[in-house]
């Protein structure tokens, strides 16, 4: 029985934490947020130099050839420091999709550049003010080209390529588009966490390359987000832990009525509830990490379980961290709001809490839990 990371993986995590701390990632996040610069180029370049973009990429394509568990520990640290980089879009979604579903030729042409940072990927799926589904995708794919519009695409200002969910004549198809194509126009959309820019993209007769077949794209998309959900969940527990730590430290230092506010049970019990939610989420993440790293048949329910509990934990920890800070927590100056914003971004990228609960119950129906 060993539901834990190896010493090497823990070492990697420790190094990642030290690096992000030294690089002042949290302050960089604030700067990006305030300048509306959408991401931090310098931090991203350093992350690329460290090889994190190639953790899961096989050595023959220039990567480190490590497993998903190594990616999980990095994700937790990126989450803890709110690193303003397109890591989730390019690594958890785009690179993983190419590794799992790309043709040999596509891997050869894309993976080395994804590792070196010459290519940055993102996922374009949403089209309107409601959840995307197999039935409502309208962006059209036909004879090697796509036409239509996507919105709320994260990181599109740095991304060179997008994985686009498109409607083909026979179903749903996943297409990779080069965003430097003349038929692409990208526009910034204001959003509630400007430390990660969101954009609309119009595709006008843009040439694409398909991943998988032209019919079962939605199943491939689901499989990609089931995997990514585990990595997002690790970012979420990193952010939850940081929010809880902030709240605990403040509750020890801030005095009211002659004593630390952390000595009041109203505050204690709030913080205990945050710890409980985080512990449940973290334990579910361990199991999901195992399921991901072994490509277990349990992955759909394990990742939905990790995802639902991580969304709930981050939501609770980030909002109650503000509450514990009182008026200070509501100011722009304190960092609380940056976690609050990021918790929302991470919970909506990949789909909402309610829809993941539904995915979980559907997977339970399919596997018949009793």
């Amino acid at each position, binding site marked *: 029985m060993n539901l*834990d990371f190896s010493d090497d993986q823990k070492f990697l995590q420790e190094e990642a934490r030290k690096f992000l701390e030294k690089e002042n990632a949290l302050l960089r996040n604030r700067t990006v947020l305030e300048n509306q610069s959408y991401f931090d180029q310098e931090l991203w370049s350093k992350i690329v130099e460290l090889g994190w973009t190639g953790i899961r990429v096989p050595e023959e394509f220039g990567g480190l050839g490590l497993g998903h568990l190594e990616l999980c520990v990095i994700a937790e640290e990126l989450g803890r420091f709110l690193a303003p980089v397109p890591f989730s879009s390019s690594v958890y979604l785009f690179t993983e999709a190419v590794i799992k579903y790309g043709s040999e030729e596509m891997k050869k042409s894309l993976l080395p550049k994804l590792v070196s940072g010459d290519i940055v990927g993102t996922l374009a799926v949403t089209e309107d003010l409601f959840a995307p589904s197999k039935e409502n995708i309208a962006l059209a794919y036909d004879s090697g080209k796509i036409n239509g519009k996507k919105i709320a695409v994260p990181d599109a200002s740095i991304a060179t390529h997008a994985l686009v969910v498109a409607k083909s004549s026979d179903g749903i198809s996943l297409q990779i588009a080069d965003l430097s194509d003349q038929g692409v126009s990208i526009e910034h959309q204001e959003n509630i966490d400007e430390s990660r820019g969101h954009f609309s993209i119009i595709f006008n007769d843009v040439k694409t390359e398909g991943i998988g077949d032209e019919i079962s794209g939605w199943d491939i998309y689901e499989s990609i987000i089931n995997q990514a959900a585990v990595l997002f969940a690790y970012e979420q527990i990193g952010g939850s832990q940081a929010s809880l730590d902030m709240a605990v430290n403040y509750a020890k230092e801030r005095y009211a009525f002659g004593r630390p506010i952390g000595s009041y*049970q109203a505050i204690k019990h709030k913080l205990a509830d945050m710890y409980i939610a985080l512990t449940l989420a973290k*334990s579910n993440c361990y199991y999901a990490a195992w399921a991901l790293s072994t490509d277990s048949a349990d992955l759909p329910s394990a990742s939905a379980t990790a995802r*639902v509990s991580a969304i709930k934990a981050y939501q609770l920890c980030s909002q109650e961290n503000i509450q514990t800070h009182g008026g200070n927590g509501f100011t722009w100056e304190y960092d609380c709001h940056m976690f609050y914003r990021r918790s929302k971004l991470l919970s909506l990228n990949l789909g909402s809490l309610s829809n993941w*609960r539904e995915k979980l119950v559907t997977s*339970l129906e399919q596997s018949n839990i009793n």
Partner: protein
Amino acid sequence: MDFNDTKEEAKFRKKCRDWLEKNATPKEDSTPQNDDFANKDKMKAAKAWQKKKYDAGWAMLHWPKEYGGIGASSMERIIWANEESKFDVPKGIFEIGLGMCGPVMMEYATEEQKERYLPPMAEGKEIWCQLFSEPSAGSDVAGLRSKAVQKGDKWIINGQKVWTSGAHFSDYGILVVRHDPNMEKHKGMTFFFVDMKSPGIEVKPIKQITGGSSFNEVYFTDVEIPDSQRLGEIGDGWKVAITTLMNERLAVGDAGGADVEDAFRWAKTQDNLGEPLLNNKAARESIADWYCEKSGLKNTKLRTMSALSRGDTPGPEASITKIVSAGKLQNIGNFGIDSLDMAGMLRTDNADVKGFQNAWLGAPGMRIAGGTDEILRNIIAERVLGLPQDPRADKGVAFKDIPSGNS
């Protein structure tokens, strides 16, 4: 990461399993049995099973050989418990003695006493109970008032204990009492073990909201205890009691009873306005959340086991178990009963309905026993998160001067 036993663990598991297969029948379903030990046959069966285990060395496997154990590691203990739980065997009657009284005796009794009392405790020949809580000392158990007065080489005990599980069939009990109300609260207590057949002890069952009676009130009127049955020094009562309570927190784990699988199975067939309840969005969301809680607890346990398997001390994560499972039990009870609409009021023979009603009636007790939700949140906040204690009105004051209201 993997879920496999190490070679040694696998070997040990096989040894457990081989013995269990020869000596017990595998369980057919996972429904927890409600053992009623007032029933003489059930008590007899429980004692017989315990004796069988004892003779083979499984009863208290982590104890040293001289007291009837095999010196097993924590991991081996977990493996045994895990294997035993797959068999249809009596459970629940010896847990307080073995889980809480045993460790205290092991740490504080004389060698002679250990040789006398521990083997029969492990064998199930003698049953033990724990006499701590009092009518005015629940969460604040150090507020206890039962008196001990020293008289030569004896102590005379007067007072009342409450919430004593199994006192009506116990042979011995561990007892903490106040020997000096002029001292500070935590300093004026002393710890004993007592023969439950002593003159002056009267046991009265408490009827619970479930209708059952697993707890008792225990009255002490001029009960004599020899000084040789004192555990720890005079005035060390609280220190010794804490040892026991730490073990209690390890022992009180999951609140058993109706769980998410039951709610899920039920919702698949239960009619709700002409459709299966499982089609209802609110029902689906609740089931998703309970499944996350249940998995979270299961995986937390696996993390704890991973640490034990490596020979490390587990982190504090297991402290969330009771608070999460007791709350879930209450919610699932509500869910099941409510799904019957007006008919949810009725006691029926339907096993699922009974399960939901038992969960609903029993859950309030689970949220209180072995540390209330509120005390457990305090413990997480203070011991895990390191927050400061509340200012207290009972520190640095003689016990008799502490405000106590009217109760």
